[in-house]
C-alpha cells in the first residue's frame, strides 16, 4: 500500500467500526424493511396478476424489491452529519489544516458510511427474504439467487460502483452544505429525487415506456436500478456492460463536479461560529 492512500484507508476503517455500534436502530430498521418490502411485494403481485405483457417478470420485480430493502442504507439520503456540524460551528475551517485533500477525505468517510451500515442491515434482510421465506412456504414472495454466475459477478461489480457513486453524491452534498451554510436545503431536495429516480419507489422498468430513455440515463439509476436488474437477469450481456459503463461515467462526472465546486467554495470559505 502506498503512503499516499494510507490515511484514507485508515479513515474508512475507523468510521466502519464506529458505525457498527448502532444495533437497536438496526433491529427497528429491519422490521420496517420487512413491512415495507412485504407490502410492495403483495401489491406488485396483485398488479401483475391481471396483466399479460409486462416489461419485467414478477419474480424479477420481487427480487428488485427485496434487494432494495436490503441495500436501502447504501443510498446517499443525507450528507455527513459531522460535516454539517462542522459547518454549523465553524470547525470546517480546521479541515483545511489537515495535510489531506479535503474532497478525498470526505469521499472516504462517505465510502465508510455507505458500506458499514448496509452490510449490517443487508445480511438479515437477505437471509429472511431469501432463505426463511422459502422454509415457511412463501416461495412465491421470496428473493431468488442471482440468475447465473455471470449475473452474480456483474452484480458484485455494480454494487462496488454503487458505493463509489453514492459516496460521490454524498461528497457533493457535503460541499453544497459548506456552500449554503446548512445541510437542510440539500437534504430536503435530495430525498424525493433519490426515492423516485433510483427505483426505490417503483422499479424503474415499470414506469411508462416513454420515460425509459430519461430514466436510464440519469445518475440515480446507478444507485439501485442497475445492479438489481443485473442480479435478476433483466439486464445481461452487452446491456449489462453498458449499464456498468454509465455508472462509471456518472461517478467520474460527479467527482469532477464535486471537486470543482469544492475548489471554488474553499478558496473563499465562509465559516460560522464565534
Amino acid at each position, binding site marked *: 500500500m502506498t503512503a499516499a492512500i494510507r490515511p484514507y484507508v485508515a479513515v474508512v476503517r475507523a468510521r466502519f467500526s464506529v458505525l457498527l455500534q448502532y444495533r437497536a436502530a438496526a433491529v427497528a430498521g429491519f422490521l420496517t424493511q420487512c413491512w415495507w418490502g412485504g407490502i410492495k411485494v403483495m401489491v406488485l403481485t396483485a398488479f401483475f396478476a391481471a396483466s399479460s405483457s409486462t416489461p419485467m417478470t414478477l419474480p424479477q420485480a420481487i427480487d428488485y424489491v427485496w434487494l432494495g430493502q436490503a441495500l436501502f442504507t447504501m443510498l446517499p439520503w443525507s450528507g455527513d452529519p459531522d460535516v454539517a456540524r462542522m459547518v454549523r460551528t465553524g470547525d470546517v475551517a480546521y479541515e483545511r489544516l489537515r495535510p489531506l485533500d479535503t474532497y478525498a477525505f470526505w469521499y472516504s468517510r462517505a465510502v465508510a458510511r455507505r458500506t458499514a451500515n448496509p452490510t449490517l442491515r443487508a445480511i438479515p434482510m437477505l437471509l429472511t427474504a431469501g432463505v426463511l421465506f422459502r422454509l415457511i412456504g412463501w416461495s412465491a414472495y421470496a428473493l431468488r439467487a442471482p440468475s447465473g454466475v455471470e449475473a452474480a459477478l456483474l452484480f458484485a461489480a455494480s454494487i462496488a460502483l454503487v458505493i463509489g457513486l453514492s459516496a460521490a453524491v454524498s461528497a457533493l452534498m457535503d460541499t453544497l452544505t459548506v456552500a449554503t451554510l446548512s445541510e437542510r436545503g440539500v437534504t430536503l431536495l435530495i*430525498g424525493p429525487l433519490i*426515492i423516485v429516480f433510483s427505483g426505490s419507489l417503483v422499479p424503474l422498468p415499470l414506469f411508462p415506456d416513454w420515460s425509459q430513455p430519461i430514466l436510464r440515463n440519469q445518475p440515480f439509476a446507478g444507485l439501485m436500478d442497475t445492479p438489481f436488474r443485473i442480479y435478476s437477469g433483466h439486464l445481461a450481456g452487452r446491456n449489462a456492460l453498458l449499464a456498468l459503463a454509465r455508472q462509471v461515467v456518472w461517478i467520474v462526472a460527479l467527482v469532477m463536479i464535486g471537486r470543482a465546486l469544492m475548489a471554488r467554495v474553499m478558496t473563499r470559505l465562509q465559516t460560522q461560529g464565534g
Partner: protein
Amino acid sequence: MNALRLYGRYIATSIRSQRQYPASFIATSVGAFASTITDFIGIWALFARFRRLEGWQFGDVALLYGVVSVAFALADSLTRGFDLFGEQFVKTGDFDRLLVRPRSTVLQLLGYELRVTRIGRLAQGLVAWGVGVSLSSVAWPLTSWIILAFAVAGGIALFSGILILQATLAFWTVESLEIANTLTYGGVEAGQYPLDVYARWFRDFLVYVVPIGCISYFPVSVVLGRVSYTPYAFAPLFGFAFLGVALWVWGFGVRHYTSTGS
C-alpha cells in the same frame, strides 16, 4: 379555565413561536410536501402501467391514499409531545413537572406543540383526495362527505393511539422507539392500497389488531359504491376504540413511572 380553552392557549402559543421563523417554516413544509407526494407518484406510475388493481382504478386508490394521508398528517401535527416524549420528558426527568401540575398529562402533552409544518403532508393528501373525487364516477351526496370526515376523525384517533403507545414504551425503554414508525408511516403505506391485495393474515392484522383498514378501506368502499353494506361506514369507530385502549395503557404507564431524577 376549562380544558378546551387551555388547549386553545397552548396551540396559540405554539403557532406564535413557529411563526418566528417563516423561512424555516416554508422550507420544511415544502420539503414535507415534496417527500410525501413521491408515494402518490408511485401509485400513479403503477396504474399508468397496469391500469387496474383487483378492480380498483387509479382514482379509487387516490381517494384511499388521500383519506389515510390527511388523517395521519393531522394526527402527526397534534401529537408532537408524545412523539418526543422519551427524548424530551423521560430522559430529562421533565415529566415530573407535568405530573405536579393540576391538569392531565395527555392534555399537557397534546398542547406541547402543534406542528404547523405538517401542512405539507396534509396538502399532498388533499391533492390526492381531489384527484380521487374528480376521477370517480359516483355521485357525491352530503352523506359521502360525512362518512369520509368520520373516517378521517377515526384515522386521527388511530394514529394518535399508535403515537401514544410509542410514548408509553418510553416509560420502560428509550431504545428503538423507531419501531412505532412501522405502524405510523408503514400504516399509511399499507392503508393506501385496497385490503384485497394483501394476504389473509395481514388483512386480519389491519382490521382487528391495528385497524387501519377500518379507517380507510371500508368507508371509502361505501362511498365509492363498491359495497352496499352501510354498517361499514361506521368501521372508523374501531379507530376510536384503539385510542381508548392506548389511553388506558398510557394511564398504566404513568402509574409505573419512576423519575430519572436528574
